[in-house]
């Protein structure tokens, strides 16, 4: 059971790390979009 718990925890840590990586990309895109909107504002 210990090895299963270790494998399970490792798997989910990796999945959440990837989700965090996607979240950072999204945050960067939102920042760039807001900057573009501010540029276009008269």
């Amino acid at each position, binding site marked *: *059971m210990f*090895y*299963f718990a*270790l*494998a*399970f925890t*490792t*798997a989910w840590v*990796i*999945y959440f790390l*990837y*989700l965090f990586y*996607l979240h950072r*990309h*999204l945050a960067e*895109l939102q920042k*760039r*979009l807001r900057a*573009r909107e501010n540029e276009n504002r008269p």
Partner: protein
Amino acid sequence: MRNVLLYITGALILISTWLCTTAAAVAPPDRNIVYVHVPAAISSLVCFAAVFVCSIQYLRTERRLWDFTAAASAEVGLVFATVFNITGMIFAHAQWGTWWTFTPRLVSSAALWFLYAAYCLLRTALAERYYMRRLSAVFGIIAFTDVPLVVISARFIRDIHRPGVTFETALQTSAFILAITAALLLAAVLVLMRIDILQAKAKLETKTEPDS
């Protein structure tokens, strides 16, 4: 539609987690790894098959959506390949007392990880986007040659890695099938999210509608 898929994936993951924990608790130690290791392996191989198909389609049609899908599938496939390689090493230590041994299945699985890591690095390495996309597509087709090796290596070559798995109870079988379904749905959701990000980035950078 995307939100429905997300909620279904979340629900399936929760149910399969509960079921796998219950089924794993009653399974012998050499069985319970399959609930984590095998779904990750299957999802990664499906993602790499998607990279292969999308790369061919991109070279044929030069539509950027194929390129975005290939890139997204490669990244998500690499994540699942990382999981199945690491969980495989954990189980190797539990079963055989060593973290690693040079057998066809393990070596081809490790090679698979390095090939798709190289694919992801290639996409960031070239500044000229057109050549980057074409070169990545060619590399994606070549890298797929390792996938059949991973699949058949344990079945046709003498290997310490078990070629298949059997279950004794319906609970274990259903936990296994549900875990595979949940992993495949999670892979699909992650690929779709990544494609959205790539398309939005392309829109921002070119300031025109991307080729769809």
